[in-house]
């Protein structure tokens, strides 16, 4: 018989609100301590010291409105956070500071998380939902200049964007955007022309989350249904459904492929974290610890593979930290 699934390596408690966003920053050299940022429903961003497993700092910058996305820009000293107060804040955390350096007003009222892509040294692109319901806007950071606004053709009826993923094949090539929409379709955008390259209907319900592996040109998306959809991008830049995987319970709130592209994790509405092999989507583990919907999953960026961690944040106010499949 297969071994019973592992227990969490440890659990972080004390956010006193549902956890919606997680981001590791563990790639630094000693004496930097590994850090986990978590964003919760009460508007606080907690900075967890993974050595002591305690909160180092709590950042309050979204007016007690839920934080739905956190991301670092070059190490742990610059942090981007997106809140439901329709603001995206850039934090300066260097030398113990905790101040908001800059912020962007998104005007979007949706739940769509932003996506960040480093295109050159000191230059980033950030995709975010825009003011108009079905639009996506791409900004260049830190200059905050608008690169393009991606607007579906009239009558396309895609609905609101639900999830975004900026990517590029290599650092010289054109950045592209994959976005999942309310009508269940995934669309590939060309940023320079602002045009749809391909559109794929892969879900009956809104696409809740997606992730994309640019090496294999293969992506995965989850929705409020019971299926995971795996699709691929062919040479002609057309999206095609590869396979689908049926889940036991409906609802996926987050999907993340581990940076080494070996495994992926999903956050389920059924309180469970599921781990799959990425090559064939072979189910590997069902981690049943949380007692409420899991909102987000994130893999750490440890340099040493054996230290890699998986974190999951849940509505039950807890963040579970797992050490799983670290040997491969």
């Amino acid at each position, binding site marked *: *018989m*297969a*071994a*019973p*699934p*592992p*227990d*969490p390596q440890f*659990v972080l408690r004390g956010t006193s609100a549902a956890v919606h966003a997680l981001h590791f920053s563990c790639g630094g050299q000693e004496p930097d301590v590994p850090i986990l940022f978590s964003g919760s429903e009460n508007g606080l961003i907690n900075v967890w010291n993974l050595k002591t497993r305690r909160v180092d700092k709590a950042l309050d910058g979204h007016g007690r409105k839920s934080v739905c996305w956190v991301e670092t820009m070059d190490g742990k000293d610059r942090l981007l956070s997106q809140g439901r107060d329709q603001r995206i804040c850039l934090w300066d955390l260097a030398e113990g500071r905790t101040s908001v350096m800059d912020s962007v007003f998104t005007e979007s009222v949706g739940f769509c998380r932003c996506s960040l892509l480093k295109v050159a040294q000191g230059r980033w692109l950030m995709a975010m939902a825009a003011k108009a319901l079905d639009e996506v806007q791409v900004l260049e950071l830190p200059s905050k200049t608008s690169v393009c606004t991606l607007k579906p053709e009239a009558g396309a009826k895609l609905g609101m964007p639900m999830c975004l993923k900026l990517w590029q094949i290599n650092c010289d090539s054109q950045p592209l955007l994959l976005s999942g929409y309310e009508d269940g379709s995934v669309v590939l955008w060309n940023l320079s022309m602002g045009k749809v390259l391909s559109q794929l209907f892969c879900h009956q319900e809104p696409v809740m989350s997606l992730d994309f592996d640019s090496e294999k040109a293969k992506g995965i998306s989850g929705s409020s249904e019971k299926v995971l959809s795996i699709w691929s991008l062919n040479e002609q830049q057309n999206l095609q459904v590869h396979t689908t995987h049926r889940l*036991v*319970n409906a609802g996926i709130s987050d999907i993340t492929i581990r940076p080494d592209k*070996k*495994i992926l994790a999903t956050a389920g509405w*059924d*309180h*469970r974290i599921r781990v*799959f*092999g*990425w*090559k*064939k989507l*072979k*189910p*590997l*583990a*069902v*981690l*049943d*610890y949380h007692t409420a919907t899991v909102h987000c999953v994130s893999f750490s960026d440890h340099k040493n593979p054996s230290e890699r961690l998986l974190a999951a944040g849940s509505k039950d106010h807890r963040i579970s930290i797992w050490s799983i*499949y670290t040997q*491969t």
Partner: protein
Amino acid sequence: SEARGAAMATAVESALREALAGPAPGAAALGALRDGLAAAGGPAALGRRQRERFGALLRSLAAAAAEGPEEPAGPWRSCFVEGPPGLALSALLGALGDAGRRLQPIVEVLERFVREGRLAALMWEVCQQQARGGPAELQDALLAGVVALPDRVSNSLRGRNPAVFFPQNYFPLLGAAIVEVLLTLSAIAPVLSILSVYLPLVSSSTSEEILSVLVPRLADLTKSDCIWQRICWRLVECVPERWMEAVVLGFVQRAPGADVLSRLLGNLVVKNKQAQFVVTQKFLLLQYGYTTAVLQNLLGYLSLDSLRRALLIKVLQELLETWSSSSAVKHSPAEQQEYISKAILICLSHLKEPEIESCRQELLTSMMEGVKCHLDSSLPQIRRLGMIVAESISSKINTDGPVLKFQYEEDDEARELKSLLVQAPSICAVPSLPDDNDDDLTPYDMSEDKELKKTKAPVYIRDCIEVLTGSEDTDKWEATVKALESLVRKNPAATREVSVELAKILLHLEEKTCIEGFAELRQRAQVAVLTVDPIPVAQYLTSQFYSLNYSLRQRMDILDVLVLAARELSFPKVHGKIKHVEKPCVQLLPGSDSSNDWRKIVDERIKSKTRRFAKGPSQVQVASGPNEFNSVAGHFFFPLLQNFDRPLSTFDLLGEDHFVLGRLVHTLAVLMYLAVNTVAVTAMGKALMEFVWALRFHTDSYVRQGLLSCISSVLLSVPAEHLLNNMTEELLETQSWLGDVVEKDPDGDCRRLALQNLLLMENLKKKLNKTVPS
């Protein structure tokens, strides 16, 4: 050369005369005789008169060796080995039979005779004599002598015979000799007609060893040579009738495949009536001990020639006739039915489309009849055989239409049977390539990944009743069914208030939505209710067993529930400890179960820290407690016995519903067994013996098995002195019946059970004799 030959003959003649002249032939004369014989070209060159003289010489030499004052001088032994083999053997056998003083030299000569290949020469000589029309009796006597040689030597030496005369050594030599003769013969085709002479050898009681040499050799020789095939066919065709079966069986068992068998036997079955009977009837329908490989050889052989294929179809029809006969299904042993099923499947595998077309209607009819009487059987094994065969027939006759499909467990046996339907199993299975997948990642156990329950189960028994009877909310209903057992066990007092009502609801509960393991959940809830409040619920259930308007399934459910509850009640504290073994699952905190384990842990620690000087058998601490079954056993048992002989309009235990009767009888046996050490046990035993007596000649073997189990239970449960005092007559009657069953019952399990019962009775007697000194 004519003149030279004559001159040589004269030389032999003169040497013979000289040798026979004196009372004992001199060494010089024997030497001259050998030289002359060698010069003449061996014993075949001798004329009739010379042979007679040679015979006389050999007899006198043998007699002198055995009886004379001293062994003959010179190379007398070589005369036997080099002279005419027939004469030599009869002279030696004669001397052996007279049982003279010195047997050693004679046996030594015989050993040389066998070792130096004279057996083949002897047979060759007999062949030639037969071709010339020599006296048949003499030849038969000689061949009989050859076959019986090991026995005769052994008799004469009282068992101290040399190794070469052990049957396992001698008969392979004989087999090799036969092959050698056949090899010589193959060059001279006309001599074929006399081959039959060797078959008595083949078919003697010791054919085993001869055939094991002969068949592989012949298989080898016939591979590419059609003359050899003809020789071989002729060989088997001329086998006398009484030996045909043994020869054919030997060939069928030893041939490595149907094609080889076909080469060896040719169209024997078409030409020879006896062989046909043996192959198409005896091996298939009358006997059933052979392996599947033999069946495959046999039927494959029939399928390999157009003349024989007609027989194949006939065989299939006869097999199906047996398979679909309800009396055969009822009365023949399960092993035979399996054998016949296998044969049918193999036949089907050989049939071609047009042949099936020609007998489709018959196949269909047989299938319908056969499947009916197989499904009627109470033995699961027989039912499954029926299903598999029917499925196979159906798939053969309906190539495009819908086919029969039954639900049964796919185990190795079923797969083996089904594999027979496919011809020529591919020997080299392509090993599946380890493809590029996530194989380096070992999955964890995911069995706990089940659908999330949305609604909460009720927490009060009365709520459960409400949900189960009236609720339209299927989620709630599901949750209730799943939670009911533990709820009942946790709240015995609340359950007792509504126990009968709950039992009634559960008995009638049908699967509303598709829940995994619904039947088991319901059954466990029923068992829980019955154990919590045994008397009223048992009264209700047993009364329902004999009432109107229940399905057979429900009646069998009642029996199962009674047995399970009785078992639980009779074992001290089963529930709570054994039943709820927690499977490992992700849990941060150790479960509340740990409190149950503390005693085990403490015990282990004490054990590991304690040094013991004497290790007796480790004492297993049996949890002790009152036997809760004691006070209620009668309520479980007696009502079930009451009405079995009163048929209802929908339920006739003694008629069609013998399967339920079988279950009832088995249930009674278990209840009786569990009632050991209870007060009511003697009365129960007596009633059960009467019940068994009334049904003892039931035609269904499943029922009879149950009855025999009942007897065992009575013997084991009722105290010995009560048995003897209160049931002496019944026991004696039963004993004689058991004796009958052991001898005559067609069912192997029945015979075994009866034998066990007789042993139990014997033990009982011994025990009583020990405790009560007469």
